[in-house]
């Protein structure tokens, strides 16, 4: 059997290569942080195609990602949800920070991720899949009554190997509002630009502006019941198109691999980077 230690050992043997740019993933994080002082605005949606007897939903969320310094990126999420035949509501917010302890590029680059979530049970963005509890499909008016204060940590390992990015996330989450134990999850992904050759002519819809990849993510149960039983897992091709040097469109149809997953999750996103945001803000307010 091909085990994870053998894979990590092989990664250590391969010299790091290319990338520096953001990978196109929706769930998995790689080791590339936001540049210091830059702000990235993102609008994303997760659309859930339901099983029989369930209702479809669209869960939009906004992300504001800010590069505090070269080893720390912080991000605020604001999320909502709209269920067919039910209602539209604000489902909460999340605040996360990512810390990259090693500045230089290594064959495997670790990043620490810490997040606080203040969401209710109607949350549907499915930014990460942990534990084994399936989504509740009660009416939104009931789901919104249950609030969750959660702490989440991830160990992000990411490598740029010969034009490919390979990223592994190991997730542990603790609901501070209920005694569910510690819940676990994972996300693995790989991606690469469709072509490495660069044309001297300007182009928009061309292979050099497209990055494609594949994500796998899912839950691993909890300390109360560790394992794959009753867990949700997804396989998700991802495609990102760099519209300009500041903006990117991304799309990912995730296919549920178990009967506790949604059959399909359609994810779409648009991101725009404001460079030098910190200094622009300082100038706007008249200080240095």
């Amino acid at each position: 059997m091909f085990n994870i230690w053998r894979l990590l050992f092989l990664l250590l043997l391969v010299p790091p290569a290319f990338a520096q740019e953001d990978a196109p993933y929706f769930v998995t994080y790689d080791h590339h942080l936001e540049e210091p002082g830059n702000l990235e605005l993102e609008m994303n949606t997760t659309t859930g195609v339901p099983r029989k007897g369930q209702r479809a939903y669209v869960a939009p969320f906004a992300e504001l990602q800010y590069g505090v310094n070269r080893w720390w990126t912080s991000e605020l999420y604001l999320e909502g949800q709209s269920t067919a035949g039910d209602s539209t509501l604000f489902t909460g917010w999340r605040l996360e920070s990512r810390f990259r302890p090693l500045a230089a590029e290594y064959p495997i680059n670790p990043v620490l991720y810490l997040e606080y979530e203040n969401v209710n049970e109607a949350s549907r963005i499915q930014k990460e899949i942990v534990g084994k509890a399936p989504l509740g499909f009660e009416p939104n008016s009931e789901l919104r009554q249950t609030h969750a204060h959660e702490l989440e940590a991830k160990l992000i390992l990411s490598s740029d190997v010969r034009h490919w990015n390979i990223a592994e996330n190991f997730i542990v989450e603790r609901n501070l509002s209920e005694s569910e134990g510690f819940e676990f999850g994972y996300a693995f992904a790989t991606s690469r630009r469709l072509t490495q050759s660069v044309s001297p002519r300007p182009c928009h819809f061309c292979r050099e502006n497209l990055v494609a990849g594949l994500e796998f993510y899912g839950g691993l149960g909890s300390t109360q019941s560790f394992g794959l039983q009753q867990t949700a897992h997804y396989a998700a091709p991802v495609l990102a198109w760099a519209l300009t040097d500041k903006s990117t469109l991304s799309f990912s149809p995730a296919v549920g691999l178990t009967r506790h997953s949604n059959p399909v999750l359609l994810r779409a996103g648009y991101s725009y980077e404001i460079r030098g945001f910190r200094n622009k803000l300082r100038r706007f307010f008249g200080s240095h």
Partner: protein
Amino acid sequence: MNYRPLSITILAFASLACLGIAQTAKPPADKWEAPADAAAKPNPEAKNPDAAAVGRKLYMRTCVGCHEEDGSGKDTGAANLRSPEVQAQSDGALFWKVSNGNTAAGMPSFASLPETDRWDVVTFLRTLKDANGTGAEGSGQGKKDSPQGPKSKGR
């Protein structure tokens, strides 16, 4: 309740945090100069008419986040690539800096980019001009030698 996965997680995080503290405690390199032999290397892409255009695309993909579109770095605090200090350096010296980086000061290494691409980026850097109109043509190209070594020829 099984706390073993949690203990491993905490241990892993603590180890990485220690590494991070050690990393940030490292003083930044205050003298960053290319070795003389690297600075003397001629730019093989200097006569390629497409090099600057390709270099611009690569710059917009990998460098613009810090150095900004005009190379000034005025809003991000990164090095001003249009400044006489930068433009006075030889192509070989700039190539060496792009290739090796200076991570202690925030500049990553781009050694993983193909060598031709790195030379193309250097060729593009020569097209950046300072606000007063100086830049590649105005500041560095005419001088025989920079502190890092002689200029590349044929440009």
